[in-house]
């Protein structure tokens, strides 16, 4: 499970994601071009990886990871309790996307990880 909260300031558009426990994460997913993002680790430690860990990277607090086209789809797993990341949309807010209030912050529990933790 994870918590999410919209971050928007003029041209900047992104989401913060908080993982309360080690092993929490965001299951395998892909993005449209308009929703592609990078990942900035705010605290804790995460692993990003592709299907069957065809690629994998471990990121620590302060790290910035730029997701290229070959990093899709991907999964994010927290390696420590209380880990938080910021996903910044590289194209800003997608055209025509105006989220209702209930979609700006919340908790998601139905997108489990597809692979066990690496370590």
């Amino acid at each position: 499970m994870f918590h999410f909260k919209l971050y928007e300031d003029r041209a900047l558009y992104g989401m913060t994601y908080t993982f309360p426990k080690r092993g929490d994460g965001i299951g395998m997913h892909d993005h449209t071009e308009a929703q592609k993002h990078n990942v900035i680790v705010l605290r804790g430690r995460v692993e990003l990886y592709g299907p069957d860990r065809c690629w994998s990277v471990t990121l620590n607090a302060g790290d910035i990871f730029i997701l290229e086209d070959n990093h899709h789809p991907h999964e994010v797993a927290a390696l420590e309790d209380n880990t938080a990341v910021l996903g910044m949309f590289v194209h800003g807010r997608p055209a025509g996307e105006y989220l209702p209030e209930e979609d700006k912050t919340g908790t998601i529990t139905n997108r489990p990880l597809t692979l066990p933790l690496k370590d």
Partner: protein
Amino acid sequence: MAGISVNVSGTWKPLASVWVNVSGTWKQCNVWLNVSGTWKQILSKFTATINKYTTAGSGTETIPSGATTVVIEVWGGGGGGIHGSGTGMGANNGTGGGAGGYSRSSYAVSALGGAGKTFSYTVPSGGTGGTGTPTAGSAGTVTAGTVTGFTSMTANGGSAGNNSSGSTGGTASGGNQANTTGGGRAARDASGGTPITGTVSGDGSPYGGGGAGGGLGATSPGSPGNTGAVVFSYT
């Protein structure tokens, strides 16, 4: 085709069918007449007939001549699926709509007043999906027209998908063989509610399935629910 009439208390009435007892079992049969050396069929045994109504709307059903039993089935409309939510890694899928209820009855035609008597029916529509607020499916009904001794049947529509509470299937009532509630979905389960299987197949049956919820993201639309149906099966 010519016919045979019988005089019942001074009134001539067409004979719908002829039955013979073969070794203890009653069987319906064809009747042929030799007219000047040429055999002509003047009465046919009844051929099983299924009348399916799968387009939303109302109508009248007439019991055909020669039928001895009728099985009536009604499906409620499926509820519409709701769109997904969120964006980016915070995107989530939407919830599928509930399936319509299902009701089934069986009657002897003689108990309904005989051939030529009528029912009124309503085929329900499925709910809407899209990126707005989805709607529930409507109810399918069969009520008495000129038939007698018939209990009205109702199959309610499934609810629309809801991303907090899920969806529920429609209930049903009035059937003397079955009254089954359609399948619902938990919140964020994007598959449409499972429809109830009846006695007919093909032509889109089972009818009244719930619409699928949208995929990841607020711009991913839900699907509309499936139309219900009313089916009359005569033997």
